[in-house]
């Protein structure tokens, strides 16, 4: 029986899931298709001192007999170090940290000073074969350090003296190893790392009645704060996506051997994004991420979210509670996390190729505690009748400013996604929100042009990356 060699490249669907929630200012309306970024690996890491917990979600949908997972780990893991966390908690973390769309309504300029903003709340809640020949293993320099069954998985912890032996052992035990595995395994063996190998125990999986494979969690102590990604590139075709959440106590987590940058966010987009099928928020985000990753030549890790988990604004989903955090391996949190449990969540999104990410991700926890999110803003124009406006001068000023703003929004959307600005202008004009508003003046491009000078100006205006 041949098993496919699946490492960190777990086929999953990254869901920018959404739930409706009213927030301090603006309303959360964003939703993104569950199929967004399919085939992204999803990993939730917990780091507290040298204690590390890695949770890996696997949306593997092929033949279960062919599934196998190989992850280098720094120490021998025992049965109590390995668990199967709830799949639903992954969805919760994903939903909480998902890129979000917030909408605001312009006050009616005919009715000063401060009419209450009307808002409609629209959001969608989305919700090994046991027998191992010890002698043969020894002859190959492979040592079975431990083996046990956890949930639906048969797990073996291996150590090896040389990569050839390990490759042979994996071959002989039914793992289909891609070409080059030996070379990729060697550096881990040299560093005296062990290999966590899991395959599905069909009986246990059938007993659980679960449709999908359960996530896997393993905990260990190590001074190395890193995530092995190189093995997963062995059978890579084209760029791969990894979404990495890190739960930590001090501050934002970033990579130290690659650049970590924030995605362009907190900008205003044309309100039609809320309704349009072609330019929906999910499609916008997908196109924007594609464009930004390409511009950076697939050489950076993007920060998608960083927040103190005791709150959110606007909330894409409620923060995780203590039980959910414990399920992911966060220790020492009790009571209501919404009241002062110090858990910081960093969400990194990496699109990498074997060439641009030649080594594993090395991470560090910075002292940065400034909350940050990929949030996009829709501003709905006020609806009023100019002929019947007691405050005509102010309404006219508003309309002029609105025209400029709409052009800026169109330019921003075009710059971020690489979409045609004329198509955007056309859509913005016929969109439901556009009818009461002024025309977008084509050619009057005051928008978010991305020149160094414009960047300098924004840097000076915005106070750098403070927001």
């Amino acid at each position, binding site marked *: 029986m041949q098993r496919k060699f699946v490492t960190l490249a777990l086929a999953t669907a990254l869901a920018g899931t959404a739930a409706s929630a009213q927030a301090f200012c603006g309303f959360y309306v964003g939703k993104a298709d569950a199929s967004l970024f399919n085939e992204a690996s999803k990993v939730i890491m917990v780091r507290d001192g040298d204690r590390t917990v890695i949770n890996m979600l696997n949306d593997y949908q092929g033949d279960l007999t062919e599934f196998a997972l190989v992850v280098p780990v720094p120490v021998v893991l025992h049965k109590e170090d390995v668990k199967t966390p709830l799949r639903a908690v992954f969805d919760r973390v994903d939903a909480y940290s998902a890129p979000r769309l917030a909408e605001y309504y312009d006050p009616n300029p005919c009715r000063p000073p401060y009419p209450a903003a009307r808002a409609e709340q629209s959001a969608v809640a989305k919700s090994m074969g046991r027998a191992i020949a010890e002698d043969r293993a020894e002859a190959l320099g492979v040592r079975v350090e431990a083996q046990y069954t956890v949930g639906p998985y048969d797990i073996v912890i291996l150590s090896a003296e040389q990569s050839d032996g390990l490759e042979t052992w994996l071959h002989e035990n039914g793992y289909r190893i891609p070409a080059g595995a030996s070379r990729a395994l060697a550096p881990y063996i040299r560093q005296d790392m062990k290999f966590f190998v899991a395959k599905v125990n069909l009986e246990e999986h059938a007993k659980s009645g679960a449709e999908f494979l359960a996530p896997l969690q393993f905990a260990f102590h190590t001074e190395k704060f890193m995530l092995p990604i190189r093995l997963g590139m062995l059978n890579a075709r084209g760029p791969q996506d990894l979404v990495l959440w890190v739960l930590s106590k001090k*501050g934002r987590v970033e990579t130290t051997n690659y650049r970590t940058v924030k995605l362009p966010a907190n900008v205003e987009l044309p309100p039609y994004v809320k309704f349009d099928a072609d330019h929906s928020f999910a499609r916008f985000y997908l196109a924007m991420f594609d464009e930004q990753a390409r511009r950076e030549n697939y050489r950076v890790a993007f920060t998608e979210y960083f927040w103190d988990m005791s709150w959110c604004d606007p909330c894409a989903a409620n923060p995780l509670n203590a039980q959910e955090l414990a399920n992911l391996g966060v220790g020492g949190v009790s009571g209501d996390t919404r009241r002062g449990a110090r858990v910081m969540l960093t969400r990194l999104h990496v699109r990498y190729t074997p060439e641009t990410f030649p080594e594993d991700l090395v991470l560090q926890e910075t002292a940065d505690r400034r909350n940050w999110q990929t949030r996009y803003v829709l501003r709905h124009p006020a609806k009023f009748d100019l002929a019947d406006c007691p405050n005509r001068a102010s309404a006219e000023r508003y309309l002029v400013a609105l025209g400029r703003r709409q052009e800026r929004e169109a330019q921003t959307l075009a710059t971020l996604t690489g979409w045609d600005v004329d198509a955007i202008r056309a859509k913005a004009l016929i969109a439901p929100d556009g009818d009461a508003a002024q025309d977008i003046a084509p050619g009057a491009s005051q928008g978010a042009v991305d020149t160094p000078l414009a960047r300098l100006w924004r840097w000076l205006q915005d*106070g750098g990356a403070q927001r």
Partner: protein
Amino acid sequence: MKPQALAAAVPAAAGPGLRARLGALARLDARLYQIVFLALLLGTGVLVRDFSLDPRQVALAFAAGIATQLFWVRRLGLPRVGLLSALVTCFGLSVLLRADSLWVHPLAAAACLSAKFVLRIEGKHLFNPTNLGVVLAVLLLPGAWVSPGQWGSDLLVACWVVALGGIVAGRARSAGLSLAFLTCFLGAYALRVAWLGQSWAVFLHLLQNGSLLMFAFFMISDPMTAPNHPVARIAYAACVAVLAFAWQFGLFLQNGPIWALFLCAPLVPLLDRLWPGAKPVWRRNPATTR
């Protein structure tokens, strides 16, 4: 390149006017070049590399740095000490140090520039001010950190830093420090890559690391905090490199070079005693060595 060499490199056909002008340029204080290149790097970082830096942090760092320098110059009655060093330090802090509040940069600038006047052994200050400022901030102030990955590893950037830094280091007559450090550190790393059986792309990845080159050409190259004798300088750079390597790949901690330089700085007076040498000067006036 030495100032004389720069002037001599201009062909005689260029005419005496150009030669004289280049000669005058070459005799300018090396710190002027440093300031120009650090300003360029800061600009590049902010505009191209999305440094997570607030313009107010930069402004406050400079305000505090200049005020501290003026305070000490006046208090100690040093007639011919200008602001160049303070500006170099403030640029260095802005490029390297990251903080989530506004007060980290000015505090670090004030502390490290004060230390330059107070912590002196045999007429030399002990710590490179930028290095000390970064270390003090990360150790003592909440919300301060260093992002070693901030430059990325695009070959182009690395080339620029090397090219620009090479000139600065050459001007400061301490190219030996930079090169000795890079040779030892990269040599050790190459051995590690070979021993682990990693692909050489991993080595190239580090070779292109802007932060490493930035350290090599703008921090360890400071002649004022390095040993006086050329042999001692090489030994010192090698020592920093070995410690930085052990810090990063033995202890798996970050920012090895910065910590290694801080920890090795106390060796300098010792090395100066073992290998006595002429004290460096920025210009030809010993009064301006602060």
